[in-house]
């Protein structure tokens, strides 16, 4: 009997905690849990449909409904939870949520690895051949994530590897003649 009551009070506590947790993720406009959530640069959470309607209501004076700092459609960030149902939900009346901006992380690019190859070649004294090999390596085996064929990056790399190939061949001919 006592145990049952304890359990009940525990579960009540839990549900209270849950409610308190959820209220942190309430949209500042409709006061419901934010759907298609976006966050302003000032850190305030909204449903995108709610915020969009607010921005439309006063197109000439777009301010955050909470702190009144300047706000705009371009300067809000969408929030994606794990079970994002974004694509399943057609929002006809409201334009789609602003896209998240993806910035590529820095990594070794073509030039970086090409110069490394050059350096090593000088070190072991068999420069032209290893250079030639490393040039070929790039075209045959992909050391980097392959850029999609047809993309500008792909075209650039093709172009550059051809130039290196030509330079290497000229170098070999020059050495043979010398």
């Amino acid at each position, binding site marked *: 009997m006592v145990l049952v009551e304890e359990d009940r009070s525990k579960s009540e506590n839990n549900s209270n905690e849950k409610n308190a947790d959820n209220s942190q993720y309430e949209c*500042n406009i409709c*006061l419901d849990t934010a759907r298609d959530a976006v966050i302003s640069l000032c850190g305030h959470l909204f449903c995108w449909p709610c915020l969009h309607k607010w921005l439309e*209501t006063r197109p000439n004076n777009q301010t955050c409904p909470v702190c009144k700092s300047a706000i705009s459609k371009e300067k809000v960030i969408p929030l994606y939870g794990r079970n994002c149902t974004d694509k399943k939900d057609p929002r006809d009346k409201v334009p789609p949520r602003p896209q998240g901006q993806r910035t590529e992380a820095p990594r070794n690019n073509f030039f970086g690895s090409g110069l490394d190859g050059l350096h090593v070649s000088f070190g072991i004294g068999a420069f032209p051949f290893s250079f030639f090999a490393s040039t070929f390596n790039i075209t045959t085996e992909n050391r980097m994530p392959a850029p999609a064929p047809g993309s500008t990056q792909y075209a650039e790399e093709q172009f550059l590897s051809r130039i290196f190939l030509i330079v290497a061949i000229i170098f070999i001919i020059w050495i043979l003649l010398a």
Partner: protein
Amino acid sequence: MVSIATARIKREFKEVVTSDELTKCKIKLELLNDNFTELKGEIGGPPDTPYEGGTYQLEIKIPETYPFNPPKVRFLTKIWHPNISSVTGAICLDILKDQWAAAMTLRTVLLSLQALLATPEPDDPQDAVVANQYKTNNKIFVKTARHWTNIYAGSTLAAEPEFDSKVKQLIDMGFDNHKSRVALSSHLWNVEHAIESLYN
């Protein structure tokens, strides 16, 4: 379909009713219909003001476009205040106009109105006569505001009996009670000037 306005008022209503802070501040909210479009608000006059001890009823109408547009609020209880019309109860407060923001709630509106009672803004008046009196004859303004609190808002504090006898004088001449009080209040309680204005 439940509109966003209705859904929000439901939530806000709960918030106001369950908040301890609001009972401390003497703020109340009451529903007048089932579709959450009309409410009655109530605020207590803030301490250390001429409105202390008074209770002010407010008419609150929720537009369909709420919360993207502000609620329409008006004083039902008559009040002598630079930013509130002594005739219609209309309110001049920026957040009920262009400074409204969608994250504001009825709770913030009621608290802001209470703050307005404590700190009038005579340079942005709703009632020009009251605002002018506030600036040029502040002592009479305070007495008059306190008198109105006593007569209309149920305060039991200082009643200004000489004001009452002047009002009675005009009523005896056949003038309406409230009109007589407005005329006297507007003319620094000068009986002759008040009578003159009532005849015009």
